């Protein structure tokens, strides 16, 4: 019996292996394709043995070619998988012996069965399922600059990057140290495996790309307490954006394998080609502030977002005032502090955003309000509780109107500016001018009391 079991084990290992029968099949394919003597000869000498690409620099051993035997044989273009010729010109730039397969296609290179090498099944315990078809473009972006590849074999990757910028993802997510702090940084989002993502509400295959596509379509369906807005665009946009997200992986490439544009991409992250104010606004501001002319309620963030291009706001604004506001942000609210050490924007860039905002200014008004010398804080409190507290609540997350205790607000609004704003309000909004005769009847003294009280808010 012992002997019998040993025999079974030997037969299983030495004869009934999947790759052996695949290779035997390929040998007869070679024979049937043979056109001349030498073809027949080389087909006859085809040995059934494990074939592999060992790439020490990538720490990879890829046995994919044990079954995908026709990848570099142009005669196999019409033969079905696993023997098909590799499409496109990819292998010309990426010599199989230098790069192997898994550097682009992932999957489990060491494995010797189809199921385990592709690792698409949940029964196979491998973190990186094989990427096929357009999904492979994701790994192009891991080494290359996406903008270089739009007409060189990875069009969707470039499309994904464009969608990433157009949707203003950086308004909440950091990449390369630049971006908002509301969402998680995305630098290594492609390193996430299906085990580190919540699949409770995801339909279909348990694959990272399924997760991303559904999450982009409807973030709250996939992550119920998410505050992320749905991405604008069609299924193709989400497909492309997912490819771009999956490209954001860590790799440790040795010098010899690093493509020239990887350095360019690195360089560009740190030495950004100057973006115009409008481009910066699109990438960093627009996701929340939209076109900026009106105060809007943001559904998924559950917060009111001030219209930063409101004419009355811009009327009294200066570049310095706006830059300071951008630098400090509004701690305690979703508004990120965009200074270089937090949101990652340089003073130059902030200035360009400020200048861009001021481009739409229609009138300039001097701040003429002058607070009285001895304001009554207690009276200010009573006034505030009567008139203001319904919208400007005392806690950061409650109010429909901006939170006045925010350090950024306190630091950038001078007493006269605050008084001016209370007195004249914002036209066509809920913030009326309380010192104007038709709207309210606060005296300058009462406004001063209010300003003094608001100063005490934290």
């Amino acid at each position: 019996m012992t002997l019998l079991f040993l025999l079974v084990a030997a037969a299983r290992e030495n004869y009934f292996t999947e790759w052996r029968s695949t290779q035997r099949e390929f040998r007869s394919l070679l024979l049937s394709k043979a056109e001349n003597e030498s073809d027949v000869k080389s087909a006859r000498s085809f040995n059934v043995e494990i074939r592999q690409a060992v790439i020490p620099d990538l720490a990879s051993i890829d046995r994919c070619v044990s079954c995908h035997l026709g990848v570099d044989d142009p005669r196999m273009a019409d033969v079905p998988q696993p023997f098909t010729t590799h499409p496109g010109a990819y292998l010309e730039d990426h010599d199989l012996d230098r790069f192997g397969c898994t550097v682009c296609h992932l999957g489990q290179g060491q494995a010797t069965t189809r199921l385990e090498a592709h690792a698409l099944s949940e029964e196979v315990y491998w973190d990186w399922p094989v990427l096929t078809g357009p999904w492979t473009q994701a790994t192009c972006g891991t080494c290359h600059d996406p903008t270089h590849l739009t007409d060189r074999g990875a069009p969707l990757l470039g499309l994904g990057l464009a969608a990433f910028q157009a949707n203003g993802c950086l308004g909440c997510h950091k990449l390369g140290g630049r971006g908002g702090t509301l969402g998680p940084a995305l630098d290594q989002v492609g390193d996430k495996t299906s085990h580190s993502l919540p699949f409770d509400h995801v339909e279909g295959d348990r694959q990272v790309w399924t997760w991303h596509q559904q999450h982009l379509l409807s973030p709250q369906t996939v992550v119920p307490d998410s505050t992320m807005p749905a991405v604008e665009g069609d299924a193709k946009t989400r497909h492309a954006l997912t490819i771009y997200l999956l490209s954001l992986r860590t790799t440790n490439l040795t010098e010899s394998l690093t493509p020239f544009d990887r350095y360019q991409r690195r360089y560009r992250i740190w030495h950004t080609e100057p973006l115009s104010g409008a481009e910066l606004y699109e990438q960093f501001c627009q996701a929340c502030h939209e076109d900026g002319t009106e105060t809007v309620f943001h559904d998924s963030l559950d917060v009111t977002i001030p219209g930063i291009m409101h004419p009355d706001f811009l009327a009294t604004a200066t570049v310095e005032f706006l830059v300071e506001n951008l630098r400090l942000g509004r701690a305690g609210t979703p508004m990120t502090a965009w200074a270089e050490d937090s949101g990652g924007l340089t003073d130059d860039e902030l200035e360009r955003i400020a200048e861009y905002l001021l481009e739409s200014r229609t009138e300039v008004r001097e701040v003429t309000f002058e607070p009285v010398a001895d304001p009554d804080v207690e009276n200010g409190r009573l006034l505030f509780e009567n008139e203001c507290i319904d919208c400007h609540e005392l806690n950061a997350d409650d109010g429909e109107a901006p939170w006045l205790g925010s350090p950024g607000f306190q630091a950038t609004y001078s007493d006269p500016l605050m008084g001016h704003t209370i007195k004249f309000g914002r036209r066509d909004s809920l913030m009326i001018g309380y010192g104007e005769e038709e709207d309210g009847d606060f005296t300058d003294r009462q406004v001063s009391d209010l300003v003094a009280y608001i100063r005490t808010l934290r």
Partner: protein
Amino acid sequence: MYSALRAFRENLRQLPSNFWATVRRRGPLKSDRSRSQAVFSNLFLHIHSVKTHKHSLKVSYTMGLGLFAAAFLGIVTVTGILLMVYYKPTPDQAYASIKEIHYIVPTGRMIRNLHRWSAHGMVVVVFLHMARVFYTGSYRRPREFNWFVGILLLALTLALSFTGYLLPWDQLAYWAITIGVNIASSPRELTDALGLTQHFDPGGMIRRLLLGANSVGAEALIRFHLLHVMVLPIFLFTLLGVHFWRIRKDGGLSRPETPDTAEPEGFFAKNPDKTYGLMAVVRGRSEAVGKGPENTVSSWPTLFITEMAILMAATALVLALSLAFDAPLKEIANPAVPENPAKAPWYFLGLQELVSYSAFMGGIGIPIIVLIGLILIPYLDREKGGVGIWFGGKEGARVALTSFVFSMVVVIGLLAFVINFGWLRQWFPAIPQILITFINPGTVYSLVFALWSLWVIRRHNSTRMGAIALFTCFLVGYIILTYVGTVHRGPNWDFYWSKADWPTH
């Protein structure tokens, strides 16, 4: 003058047979004498006595459990050495090297499967062997010390299996060891409760000693590897030598006293009217020849056939298991993605269940009480009768059965109660942890079992019966808790009837 040449030619001709004769160093196996020589002139066999008692060969007595354990150990050693050829004990390479062993190393997959299955087999069989030795009363004088050695061997077996668990460096390994080490560092619960941790932290010491760091990493891997392939095996084989040697010195396997002195059946029909006496020792054939005065047979070949049969059976068993089930290998270890539930190796899941009540009691308190209890059994039960008989007779079997039923009811009852209604923490959320440390299902079990066995001692007026009661309760508790921990505990250590009911993700 040519006689030397002739002799040389003759020597050449006889070389094969002479060489073989020096290897065998005995005559043909036709007499007891040459059979004895076959044993004692052979380094590898001479640990056996030349005669073996028939009782020791009875399948229903030993079930060959000790031999099975030894056979599994042999397989595990051979396959382990082969695995070491390819295994690389560093976090970067360990996982990939196991993958290579699985996918590409000739026979590697089988060898790894055999290693795993015989390791698990060894744990199971060592437990059963202990139960056999206990229930047949074989720990009695003069075998107390060998019982002690056996308990140490059990602990070493578990330690070997546990240290081997980390080596594949996959998620299963990583989190099982994390849990295992958390169990080992559970004195923290007590020192925390007493506010001593800052000054005296034995839990943290054990942890750092095992891991060489605060979490499982490269240092832990090299330590576990060293323990697994060198330190623990040295101890195990040394103690195993002692264990075997003690068997010889303690007079072979335990057996009932009576049959030895009885006449072999059918040998001599006694006439009640006559008296008998030994008149003379005679040469040549006599009625006693071939009948062994103490009901023994020659070890060669009977015992060795048995041993070979058990080795073959053990091999066949693990071969079949290895063909049918691959040793698991999950994703590569990822400290950022905890497994939920993270489970220790299965033989520690009973402990993990206890740990879920109280880390200190489950991880240290109760295991130490049990271990000390097991070691002390031969010194607390010093009765004489019933050695070599299962349960020492009818009364013992009855006590074992009632204890079995009693402990089943207690364990399952309390377990069901805890699962449905919770425990002190759920009822009084603000209760100090020290209370739960001392009053939890684990300590309740221990106390109930101890009282039960005291009651049995009183009722049957026998320490042996008390020991049987306690040991049965321990065994039942261990098996049921291990079973529940293995099968019915899911994410967050919640109870589920089957894995299909686990929440997704």
